[in-house]
């Protein structure tokens, strides 16, 4: 446990240096952050326009879709900000940077995640937070629902954290596969921005048992919004997001260890 605290401190130390490095070019920093937020805003505007033509999407009203959208975007936004650099493993391998990191007395995962830390993705988080906050004003809150919401956002970030790490590890085997990872991480986040009731049941099953993105927002939101589960999955799924997060993390860390072992044993 004490070790984990030390690792977290090292993470903050490294990230802080990158933030200060980025501030050497304040104009570019601000422009990137604003641009990032704008792109995501357009994203949501798309949803908005869609709702000017229909009342409900998969049985969900705009504020409910916004709730799902906000929760998913917040989850991936937080994960992407904290550990987005893990996607660059392939580049680190090619440029020899990974070798340099391996000679430092700090766990490789901590170094990789903190490397090139940037706050520019705050644009995405801010936008997601605004949408989520607006949607929250429609929710009929109870203490239990507040707990569910907090657990949802935290677990969502951890699920995406795990997916980023796990799928980035593919690059230990094929160096240029960051797009492959994107299909599951950003792709998954995009799918989860819509009510899963618009998809065939197979998609939901896949997003529950294979890539647990349905736990990022769908199941807990059903509880918080007081909605009937259109697919009638077990009710305890709505409280299982932390479990799904822990499982994803466990798998991700194992895959990471395998990947690093593969690297140190093949040197490529």
């Amino acid at each position, binding site marked *: 446990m004490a070790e984990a605290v030390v690792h977290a*401190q*090292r993470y903050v*130390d*490294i990230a802080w*240096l990158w933030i*200060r*490095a*980025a501030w*050497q*070019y304040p104009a570019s920093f601000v422009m990137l952050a604003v641009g990032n937020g704008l792109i995501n805003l357009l994203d949501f505007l798309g949803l908005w326009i869609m709702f000017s033509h229909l009342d409900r999407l998969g049985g969900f009203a705009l504020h409910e879709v916004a709730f799902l959208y906000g929760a998913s975007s917040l989850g991936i936004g937080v994960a992407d900000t904290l550990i987005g650099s893990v996607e660059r493993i392939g580049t680190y391998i090619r*440029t*020899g*940077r990974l*070798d*340099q990191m*391996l*000679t*430092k*007395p*700090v*766990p490789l995962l901590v170094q990789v995640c903190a490397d090139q830390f940037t706050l520019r993705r705050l644009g995405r988080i801010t936008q997601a937070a605004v949408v989520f906050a607006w949607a929250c004003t429609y929710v009929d809150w109870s203490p239990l629902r507040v707990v569910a919401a907090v657990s949802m956002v935290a677990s969502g970030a951890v699920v995406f954290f795990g997916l980023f790490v796990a799928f980035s590890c593919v690059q230990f085997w094929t160096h240029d596969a960051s797009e492959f990872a994107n299909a599951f991480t950003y792709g998954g986040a995009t799918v989860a921005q819509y009510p899963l009731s618009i998809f065939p049941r197979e998609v939901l099953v896949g997003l529950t048992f294979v890539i647990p993105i349905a736990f990022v927002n769908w199941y807990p939101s059903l509880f918080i919004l007081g909605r009937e589960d259109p697919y009638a999955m077990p009710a305890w799924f709505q409280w299982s997001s932390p479990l799904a997060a822990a499982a994803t993390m466990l798998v991700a860390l194992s895959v990471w260890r395998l990947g690093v072992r593969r690297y*140190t*044993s*093949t*040197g*490529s």
Partner: protein
Amino acid sequence: MNQPLVDVRDLSREFVVRRRVAGRRRRVRTTVAAVHDLTFQVGAGEMVGYIGPNGAGKSTTIKMLTGILVPTSGHLRVAGLEPSRDRMTLARRIGVVFGQRTTLWWDLPLRDSFELLQRMYRIPDATYRRNLDTFVDLLDLGDQLDTPVRQLSLGQRMRGDITAALLHDPEILYLDEPTIGLDVVSKGRLREFLRTLNRERGTTLLLTTHDLQDIEALCDRVIVIDHGTSVFDGELSALRGRGGSSRTLVVDLVDEAPPIEVPGATHAGSDGPRQWLRFPADVSAAPIVAAVAARYEVADLSIQEPAIEDVIRDLYAR
């Protein structure tokens, strides 16, 4: 019993290479030994040059010594640790400088990179300050501490990288091409610093380089590696005197003359009154000089030591 700091015995590292072969649809897997049955020991306080042509297995060896790469077979201990298993523990006791890559933060002053390293290595404040003061003074980096790394010259940056690798008092410092791209003055300064470091702190140095002047200036001992295995391990002077290499006697005669003939030496060329005589490196020059002086009217004499480049070329060629 004094244990060697670096203990390498029968170390091998194989790589699987997939190659396209004409006439076959699938790529063929072949195993290539980058390092093969390599054995050497380095004691604390030594300065060892580790040289060899490109692809000889130098970087593979360094990667195994630092724990980046797991050996295929053989025995390997650095400071009593097994590098690939105890990589993070070992990291605190070694310093690594890759000449062609920097570990410094490009956009930030040198000082910031150093401070991050202090935290990464958990260096006590007192040690950190003392080391920083020492190295900044020895390497003349005082004015650069607050300059962004991207504005430093290559030589300044290299000195910064070396300081970065030394702040945690490593017992052994690996230097991969530390003088590459530096001008003569910077090279000289860096070599002087490394000598001081070794003398005053007893830091063990393992240096890979293509610049043989680095070796001549720094290393008492040279390990030459070729095709993954050590082809020479010994003192620099022994490498020079090794069979096949020869010294040259340059004779300036008063007048032009036919090729000089003296026992023990062969004529290697003439240019007007100047002639070159070659004789084995392990033979004394005195009788040859005497014989020449007795038979010819000599204006001047000088002896050229075998160039280390030639000796090593001979070694590689075998």
